[in-house]
């Protein structure tokens, strides 16, 4: 499974000017009260704790202070072929900057090597405006007048995971794939959890496996009126907590097949299973719940289970 989010960050007075510099083709450092020039710039002086206000241009050429070889680049890194990571002290700076060096082989990079910025062809005010570094000295170039500071930068983050289930979750999902619903009983409080889980009241692993019905009672619900990205049903529709007969914990699911305004607490509902050929290992094997032809359950029968 992939979790992705485009982080949008406001930059503030120091990083905003630093990123604008990159966009304009120049590297800026921040000068602190001890006269040192930090690249990237610090927002606050570590000695006086005052805001850093003085930004000075440093050279686009520098010296490798440390390096390592990255034989198998990972997703998102500056180059998709083997390259060196390096800590680079740009001429005029007192601190080092971490970036990639496009070196042909480990033998072509060493501590003390001179490297220059390779600018990205299209620049937007982002650290990736420096595409990478490459061996050599930069030629002197006239840089244009500084443009306005960058206010916002966006950083897409994509992470990939393989989730693993517990033994109990595994049994629950396998049962779903066979059209069955199971819970497990807490050996201490005797409550039946669906899906089975460590009892949050007693902190003990679940015990006896219990079959539960595919019909139950709406304990509470909400009407979804708001459209959102990825929505599968046209609003309004109802998401409810359904207390399955034989269970002590309700499960969330859709209630369809009637006007949203007609759904009520205590309403008896029954599962509508998808076609058997579509079953997998998910609760989506149940398309939704719809009203059962039964009188409403009395409030006392589900009051404890909301």
């Amino acid at each position, binding site marked *: 499974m992939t979790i992705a989010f485009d982080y949008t960050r406001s930059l503030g007075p120091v990083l905003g000017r630093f990123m604008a510099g990159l966009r304009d083709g120049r590297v800026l450092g921040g000068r602190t009260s001890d006269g040192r020039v*930090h690249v990237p710039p610090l927002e606050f002086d570590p000695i006086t704790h005052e805001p850093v206000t003085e930004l000075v241009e440093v050279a686009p050429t520098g010296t490798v202070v440390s390096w*390592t070889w990255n034989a198998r680049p990972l997703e998102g890194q500056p180059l998709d072929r083997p390259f060196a990571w390096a800590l680079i002290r740009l001429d005029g700076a007192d601190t080092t900057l971490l970036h990639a060096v496009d070196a042909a082989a480990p033998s072509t990079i060493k501590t003390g090597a001179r490297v220059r910025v390779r600018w990205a062809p299209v620049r937007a005010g982002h650290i990736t405006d420096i595409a990478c570094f490459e061996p050599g000295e930069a030629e002197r170039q006239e840089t244009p007048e500084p443009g306005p500071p960058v206010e916002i930068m966006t950083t897409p983050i994509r992470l990939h995971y393989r989730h693993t289930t517990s033994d109990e979750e595994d049994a629950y999902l396998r049962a779903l794939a066979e059209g069955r619903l199971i819970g497990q009983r807490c050996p201490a409080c005797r409550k039946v959890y669906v899906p089975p889980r460590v009892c949050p009241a007693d902190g003990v692993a679940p015990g006896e496996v219990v079959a539960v019905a595919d019909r139950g009672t709406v304990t509470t619900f909400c009407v979804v009126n708001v459209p959102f990205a990825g929505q599968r049903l046209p609003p309004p529709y109802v998401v409810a907590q359904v207390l399955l007969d034989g269970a002590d914990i309700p499960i969330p699911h859709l209630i369809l097949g009637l006007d949203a305004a007609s759904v009520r607490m205590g309403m008896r509902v029954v599962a509508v299973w998808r076609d058997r050929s579509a079953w997998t290992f998910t609760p989506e094997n149940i398309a939704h719940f719809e009203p059962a032809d039964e009188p409403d359950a009395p409030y006392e029968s589900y009051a404890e289970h909301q």
Partner: protein
Amino acid sequence: MSEVAVIGFAASDRSVTTSGVETLVPVFEQALDRAGLGRREVDFWCSGSSDYLAGRAFSFVNAVDAIGAVPPIAESHVEMDAAWALYEAYLKILAGEAETALVYGFGKATAGDVHRVLALQLDPYTVAPLWPDAVSVAALQARIGIAAGLFTERDMAEVAARDSGGSAEELLGHPYLADPLRAHDVARVTDGAAAVVLAGGERASRHRERPAWITGIAHRIDPQGLGERDLTTVPSASAAARDAGLDHDVDVVALHAPFTHQELLLRHALGITGSSRFIGTDGDAMFSAGLSRIGAAAEEIMSGRAERAAAHATSGPALQQNLICVLGRDR
């Protein structure tokens, strides 16, 4: 006079499920059993885990199920190694708000690419968008240490050989993973969970014949920017050691060093000389490794194998944050 002691410890290095909760149940049972404490007698619970590592929001919420949260409990969480959760619990007991505490950490490092995930603890504006992986960042630090003459690749291999039982000579014949790091220089990525039980004052003596008294504990932080630091030194570890009262008079030392060169840097920063015995590790179980170092050091005291012990935990890139805990037989 020391007021807080470790009275129980348990750890598991088996595979952790995504929620962590199933793994924690037996770890809690074991730690509480060793402390002679019932679950309902725990006044305060504190944990360390990470949403980014687990790949789900509020990863600690599921884990709270393993505590048994009804009736309501006092609980807290840090998004760091659980050694820092122990510090919070230590303060809670010192402040008189609790007599007993259970501290736990868990992480499922194998759910994703942990070395890539850890790029997200770097500066989010100027470094993280480049996705430097944790092994590469450590390699940059190792090279600076070697260039400064603090240690050699052979010294690093000898650290690995001590824990694996292999020979440094043989290890040095292996190819680089991230020059100058070889595979043996990088701690194995493992899932894991650990729990430490703390008690204050007389309560500790009541539960354990030889509680491991915390005689000093401190943590410090160095600047986040890798270029802002002299990577051959670990000022935060040195300062924490000073504040915790770490001296040469410890029988045993448990260091949390995810890379071999970091153990060498730490020994230097902490001024640990040859006479102390080192407790080796097998892997770096994210978010519980540091806590389990404290547990392992305490175990040495509780078992009678040591009179004084020191434990260390780290968090952040290239030893950025460091915690030192000194434990002793005497209050």
